């Protein structure tokens, strides 16, 4: 499961704006100073100041009086150029990938929708970025090379209009294949996973009366559907032939006697069955799959832990995994306590849907294939009034779903109302424990949440594409900016390097900072890594102390600082990538979309300014 933003866009905006303004201000100031120094070397300090001032004054005019007609004319030219000069190569590659994708995608996997969605969306993501690099990096250098730019800049076109027009044009050029690929992807996922089962009279048998079937309507029948997409469903139909199948994974769950409620797993689906009496024979129609695609809107809570003796702890046990999750020790008072807000009867009239993604850490081999039993206690955060423990069966990599009913009981059997007795102003605590000794449950702040509602999958898919679109816009802007002062192939390489840096930014920044700051894991810098690679020395072995090692480490420190500084100016594409959320079936909140948009604009605006200034200072004719 992906991590979610718990703070709202509005909360982060003011702080973000201050940081952004400071960074951009300092950067532009440094650029200006460098320009002044270079000009002063040639013209002397006074003339240089005069020139810089003149450029700044005319630059302000260029930015304030941008003509939409001229800008759109430049954008139109970029679109025409791309359409007429470059065939829809990207689209064709994508369609070829889709055509052969089914050979490699395993529909027997536990959660095929997640696999299919992440595959197609990632394919779209990388292809669109590639297309953006190839389309936008060559245009301006080609215009310079062919001198067609002469006929543009000798018209009353401002440099700002040329840069903005190209950014808009190439954004439009790349948006068309993105939209087409997005639509193809959506149809591919939906159509590929669509399937029908057959159910005939021979497949169902009357239910034998007994204590376990006392709630079953008279005349009901039970059986299994035919196999499609490598699975089949158990089904119960009433005397009229109507019913609903069980979920496709129901036969994978081995229920334990200790489990109080049966969970429906997050990625499973079911079918509606309708019967029709034809010539005295019952004909069953099994409908399309239901509940296959999700866009859950979660309400997340604050997480704290309890130690084995029940004392409060900020973090859970560390079982050696490098994750953000804390672990709860089984068979002790150790627990993970989530505090949720917004639990009110208006929002949840039918009870509160709860979903859990629990990591299991087993310290015994016994029952490796069986679920681990855990328990939940719902507690009033003020009075401490608690419900009786409700047991559940946790399995690896499975989303557990359940409804916490409105009416609960305490340990003495007294009835409690969830909203009246256990919630205080909508706030409630849910305590999670692991029952068996020597086993551990791992949870992070995003792993247990209340399901506010189920959003629309198609809309969520579109939101996922929006994240890709933002990355594409940034790539186009980077390519246009690089192309203002680099030749086509060099601009393309520079953009490609920046995009790879942006895709790997969190990893690179982590490595660099771990090496820069004391107390973090030391993995070596660029030179040290090269030395270790050549003499095949493990990371655990220190380099021999001496002048060479000191020199290497000093140079590495400088290189790491440079990299750290450089990556301040590289956007983080992984932060804009919501493919995991869409594939995992989680709704992308509007707040997150606003944050993505603000992050993108935060880079687009200064990059545009840089491109504009560089182009303004560039002699078009050589």
């Amino acid at each position, binding site marked *: 499961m992906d991590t979610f933003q718990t703070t709202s866009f509005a909360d982060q905006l003011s702080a973000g704006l201050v940081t952004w303004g400071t960074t951009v201000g300092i950067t532009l100031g440094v650029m200006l100073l460098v320009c002044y120094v270079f000009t002063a070397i040639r*013209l002397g300090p006074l003339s240089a100041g005069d020139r810089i001032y*003149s450029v700044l004054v005319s630059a302000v005019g260029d930015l304030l009086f941008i003509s939409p007609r001229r800008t759109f004319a430049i954008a139109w*030219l970029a679109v025409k*150029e791309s359409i007429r000069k470059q065939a829809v190569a990207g689209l064709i590659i994508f369609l070829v990938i889709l055509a052969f994708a089914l050979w490699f995608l395993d529909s027997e996997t536990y959660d095929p929708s997640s696999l299919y969605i992440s595959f197609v969306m990632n394919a779209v993501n990388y292809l669109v970025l590639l297309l953006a690099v190839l389309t936008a990096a060559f245009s301006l250098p080609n215009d310079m090379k062919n*001198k067609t730019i002469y006929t543009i800049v*000798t018209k009353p076109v401002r440099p700002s209009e040329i840069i903005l027009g190209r950014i808009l044009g190439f954004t439009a050029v790349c948006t068309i294949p993105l939209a087409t690929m997005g639509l193809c992807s959506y149809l591919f996922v939906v159509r590929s996973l669509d399937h029908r089962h057959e159910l005939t009279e021979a497949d169902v048998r009357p239910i034998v009366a007994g204590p376990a079937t006392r709630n079953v309507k008279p005349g009901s029948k039970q059986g299994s559907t035919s196999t499609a997409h490598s699975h089949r469903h158990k089904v119960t139909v009433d005397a009229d032939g109507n019913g609903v199948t069980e979920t496709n994974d129901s036969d994978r769950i081995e229920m334990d006697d200790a489990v109080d409620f049966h969970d429906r797993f997050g990625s499973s689906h079911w079918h509606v069955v309708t019967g029709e009496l034809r010539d005295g024979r019952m004909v069953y129609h099994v409908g399309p799959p239901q509940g296959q695609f999700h866009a859950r809107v979660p309400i997340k809570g604050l997480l704290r832990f309890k130690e084995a003796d029940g004392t409060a702890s900020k973090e859970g046990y560390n079982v050696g995994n490098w994750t953000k999750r804390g672990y709860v020790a089984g068979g002790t008072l150790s627990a993970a306590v989530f505090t949720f807000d917004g639990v009110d009867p208006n929002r949840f009239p039918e009870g509160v849907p709860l979903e859990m993604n629990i990591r299991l850490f087993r310290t015994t081999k016994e029952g490796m294939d069986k679920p681990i039993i855990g328990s939940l206690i719902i507690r009033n955060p003020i009075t401490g009034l608690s419900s009786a423990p409700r047991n559940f069966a946790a399995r690896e990599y499975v989303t557990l779903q359940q409804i916490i009913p409105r009416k609960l009981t305490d340990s003495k059997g007294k009835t409690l109302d969830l909203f009246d007795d256990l919630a205080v102003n909508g706030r409630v605590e849910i305590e999670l424990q692991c029952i068996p000794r020597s086993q551990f449950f791992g949870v992070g702040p995003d792993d247990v949440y209340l399901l506010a509602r189920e959003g629309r999958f198609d809309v969520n898919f579109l939101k996922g594409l929006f994240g890709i679109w933002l990355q594409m816009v940034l790539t186009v802007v980077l390519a246009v900016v690089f192309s203002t002062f680099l030749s086509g192939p060099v601009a393309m390489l520079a953009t490609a390097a920046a995009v790879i840096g942006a895709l790997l930014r969190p990893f690179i920044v982590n490595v660099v900072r771990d090496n820069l700051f004391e107390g973090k894991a030391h993995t070596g810098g660029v030179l040290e890594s090269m030395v270790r690679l050549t003499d095949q020395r493990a990371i655990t072995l220190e380099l021999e102390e001496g002048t060479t090692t000191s020199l290497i480490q000093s140079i590495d420190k400088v290189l790491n600082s440079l990299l750290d500084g450089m990556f301040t100016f590289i956007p983080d594409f992984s932060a804009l990538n919501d493919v995991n959320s869409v594939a995992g079936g989680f709704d992308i909140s509007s707040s997150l979309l606003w944050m993505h948009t603000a992050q993108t604009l935060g880079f687009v605006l200064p990059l545009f300014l840089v491109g504009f200034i560089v182009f303004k*200072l560039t002699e078009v004719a050589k």
Partner: protein
Amino acid sequence: MVSTAAPAASQAASPGVDGDIVIETRGLAKVYRDFWGRQKVRALKGLDLTVRRGEIFGLLGPNGSGKTTTIKLLLGLLFPTSGQAFVLGKPATDVAKNERIGYLPEESYLYKFLNAEETLDFYGRLFNLPKAVRRERTQKLLELVRVTTAKKRRLREYSKGMTRRIGLAQALINDPELIILDEPTTGLDPIGCREMKDLILDLKRQGKTVLMCSHLLADVQDVCDRIAVLHQGELKELGRVDGLLKVRDVTELRASGLSDECKTELAAVVAKHGGKLIGLDNPTTTLEELFLEIVQDAEARPGRRAASESST
């Protein structure tokens, strides 16, 4: 390469108050440098030039004399190393001056993936012209340069002459006051050359100012009012064409229908007055005149073929 000698829109003093001056340069100089800032070539050395409203001004000079550099400096495509250039009362680096300028580059440099109509419409949009005006001017200019029938064809399918004509049309899309033509007759056949020269003279008649540079001295002589001759970046000659070309101590007499006796008498008169007879013969026409005559005749009488090689 980014030049640190950045465009300065407001740092220079404005040109003289004489509203008749369309182009003015003061000590304009350009030094081309390599990546490291080392001087490569001194293309222009302190050029002082004035072009007045309504005249056709020719820049002449051999290759590398600084003609194209001057034009690029006037258009703001290059930034001057020193000196100042003003066009239509504005610094050459001010994009606002381009509103009233039309420019035909040496090789046209047009977008080959556009057709003629799209090309003119695109450049019209760069002048912020409304759609109706763009449409009207596009049709008018396509007729003027005679490519109406090929207006839907992409420019990559055009001959050099046709591309040149579309290049000229784009230079006139904004109905400019000043037209700058870099080698305007390059790539044109003799008929095209003549039409171009007629058009330049017609622009003058409309009160427009034309600055052109050319290698073809005959072209310059035919249309220019004034010329400047550049050599190795320096201004060597400046003045009116008729004044510069006048040979003051030679007298030319042109007459028709004279008999051989009359010619002998004329020679005797020249000798009597102490003059030296340089030549007394039938003049030859120019090859251009002969070519145009043949083409016009061929168009008037199609099917006629040359009988034999002309005797000398």
